[in-house]
């Protein structure tokens, strides 16, 4: 607790931090977690028009190997426990993009008894992406935002 | 240098065998066997038997060990794996084994065999010649054996046979219950 706090921001630590951040941000493998109509847009984002793999993101089937979970769609209370389980199974460092109005705040189904009013009630969210559903370009934009955020993270001096 | 490697390999070979003998969990025993088999292959290489060593790895490690692991994984329903044999407790078995080993080593040192320093060289061609000239009958018998083995294993795991056996077993149980 004390050592890293007392450590000044010297050039070595900063540079290594930048290198590590560079590695993390360019290799965001995402967990496929499509819940509703947003997941169609998520699939499109992986397709030819807006190629998500240009940024080094590849889809993975298992939470252990993925760094990013894109919650695409309406999260119901029944699914919430699964989401939490999957998020807890992911290895650190892990990031979350909440895609679409439904996962941001409940959206269209705000008044429904079965819908979680925002994914951030369950797991921490890094980037909120508005839209119903957001276009693939918007998802790319949010990925770039996330990359900027990761680059500015101070991983070694947490 | 050669000796150091030899001692390491020998320790692995004997240690793996002892692990198999002493371990209380089936997977550890299998691992000990694996270690022992690989080390024995290395001991073959020390004695210039490269073909036999590779055969050992190919057949034992790639075949027999995989089958063993398969069986372990498929039959992992039964948990109490290493119950000891009630007819033979550890101490009498140990006694028998120690007496056997002592006799064997005594025989080894009292036999007064004459040994020559070994010659190193490729062995594949000579083994092939022996198999196709002096030991041709054995070779053919082994091939017959392998065919018998294939057929036997196939018959043994035929689905209808197993299902029939299970079904009859279930019937007998029902009958017993009815009798009660």
């Amino acid at each position: 607790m004390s050592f890293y706090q007392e450590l000044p921001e010297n050039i070595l630590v900063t540079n290594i931090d930048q290198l590590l951040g560079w590695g993390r941000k360019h290799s965001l493998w995402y967990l496929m977690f499509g819940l509703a109509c947003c997941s169609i847009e998520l699939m499109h984002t992986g397709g030819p028009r807006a190629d998500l793999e240009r940024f080094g993101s590849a889809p993975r089937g298992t939470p252990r190997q993925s760094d990013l979970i894109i919650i695409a769609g309406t999260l119901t209370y029944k699914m919430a426990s699964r989401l939490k389980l999957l998020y807890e199974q992911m290895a650190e460092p892990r990031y979350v993009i909440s895609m679409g109005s439904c996962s941001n705040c409940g959206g269209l189904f705000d008044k429904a008894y079965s819908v979680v009013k925002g994914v951030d009630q369950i797991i921490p969210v890094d980037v909120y992406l508005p839209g119903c559903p957001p276009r693939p370009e918007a998802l790319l934009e949010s990925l770039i935002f996330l990359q900027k955020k990761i680059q500015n993270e101070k991983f070694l001096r947490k | 240098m050669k000796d150091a490697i030899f001692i390491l390999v020998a320790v692995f070979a004997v240690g793996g065998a002892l692990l198999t003998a002493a371990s209380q969990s089936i997977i550890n025993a299998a691992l000990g066997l694996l270690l022992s088999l690989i080390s024995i292959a290395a001991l073959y290489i020390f004695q210039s038997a490269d073909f036999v060593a590779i055969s050992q790895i190919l057949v034992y490690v790639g075949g027999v060990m995989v089958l063993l692991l398969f069986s372990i994984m498929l039959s992992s329903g039964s948990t109490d794996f290493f119950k000891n044999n009630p007819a033979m407790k550890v101490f009498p078995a140990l006694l028998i084994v120690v007496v056997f080993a002592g006799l064997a080593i005594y025989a080894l040192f009292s036999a007064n065999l004459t040994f020559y320093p070994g010659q190193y060289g490729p062995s594949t061609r000579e083994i092939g010649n022996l198999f196709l000239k002096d030991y041709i009958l054995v070779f053919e018998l082994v091939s017959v054996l392998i065919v018998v083995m294939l057929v036997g294993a196939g018959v043994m795991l035929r689905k209808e046979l197993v299902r029939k056996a299970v079904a009859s077993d279930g019937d007998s149980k029902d009958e017993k219950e009815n009798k009660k």
Partner: protein
Amino acid sequence: MTSLLSENPNSYLIISVLIFSAGMFTVLTRKNILAIIMGIELMLNASALNFITFSFFRKSTLYSGHVFAILIIVLAAAEAVVALAILLAIFQQRKSVMTDDISDMKG
């Protein structure tokens, strides 16, 4: 005879005796069929090691030992295949791999 351990036949023979004893102990004390098969494999290996050693250090039997070692390997593989097939058939039926539970012949 050189002083090197790795060029002394007795060291190989002693290793073989030790491995054989371990295998024999396994076969004697265990109740599990899988463990018994493992013990048999160890014993077969020890004898194959003996064959190789005698073939390497005694000129009169050059390479015949290799042939026998290969035969042992093939026989062991065949034996293991059939034994494990029997074991799996028994396990599917009885849900047990202990020798006690399969002592009766009723199928």
